């Protein structure tokens, strides 16, 4: 009896979760959303690369680009229902705050390990944002985008 109750609760939770995530086909501009999410990943990877290469002075520049990519996402969801936009804005702000923190740290505490730890937290915040979108639109934040391929043979 107790097991059935648990199953019912889990099923309800699953249904609620599915209802909260619009299908790609339901989004007004799925291509723009997909592109914006991919851009966020691209800039996040650039953040990571600048930290790895100890180009700390470049980190605020990447943060600026992250904010621009975030504006791109806002624009891509502008025609979505208000409650969905509010959810996106909340998660987006959390991600922006996390990346801003990394950017600030790059000038006050230019320590690669600490910055990498901060970046990992920012990626987690970005993942939480991506969870709001259909799986087929989400890039993998840990996979480098196609632009980061090896150099051509010279």
């Amino acid at each position: 009896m107790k097991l059935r109750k648990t199953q019912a609760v889990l099923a309800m939770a699953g249904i609620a979760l599915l209802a909260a995530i619009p299908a790609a086909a339901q989004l007004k501009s799925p291509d723009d959303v997909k592109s914006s999410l991919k851009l966020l990943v691209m800039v996040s990877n650039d953040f990571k690369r600048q930290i790895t290469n100890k180009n700390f002075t470049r980190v605020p520049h990447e943060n600026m680009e992250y904010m621009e990519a975030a504006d791109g996402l806002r624009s891509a969801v502008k025609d979505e229902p208000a409650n969905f936009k509010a959810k996106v804005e909340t998660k987006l702000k959390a991600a922006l705050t996390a990346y801003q923190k990394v950017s600030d740290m790059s000038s006050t505490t230019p320590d690669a390990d600490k910055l990498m730890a901060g970046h990992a937290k920012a990626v987690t915040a970005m993942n939480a944002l991506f969870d709001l979108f259909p799986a087929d639109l989400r890039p993998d934040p840990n996979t480098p985008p196609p632009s980061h391929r090896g150099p051509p043979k010279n």
Partner: protein
Amino acid sequence: MSNATDVNSPCGAHLARREFLIAIFALLSSLLGCGQRPKSEQRVVDLFIESDGDFLTFRPDTLTCPTGALVRLTFHHAGKIISARHDWVLTYPGKLDALVKDALDKDGVLLQNDPLVIAATPLCDKGQTVTTQFVAPKPGDYPFLCSTHPEDMQGILHITK
């Protein structure tokens, strides 16, 4: 009275002979190639390349032209969101790594007379289009890149015989 030339009059015969000589001269000239277009006339090749929207790749990332051609290259920054600037810079085979390092060290600001650079467009903002022209060097695979994103935006210009 007529202005027509009378070949039976001494004057008319003289004119006719002159026209005949001119015709012979024209014929010989054309046979000897004096009126030909110069063999070395330079071929002009127009190439177009753009950024893949806001992403850090060239589209297409390979271009082709024949050696000796006058290349007129147009680069379009197709970005709409990110304010990063881009350009198109051509270097010599085997010099890509050196140019990448140079671009990274100089934060994308390459010298106008950089010995590693064969040709380059000016840097441009999103939505803008810039051009450059150069004579295609000897056949080979010549790498190109964007000086502000030298590790990401790269491609090859195949110069054929």
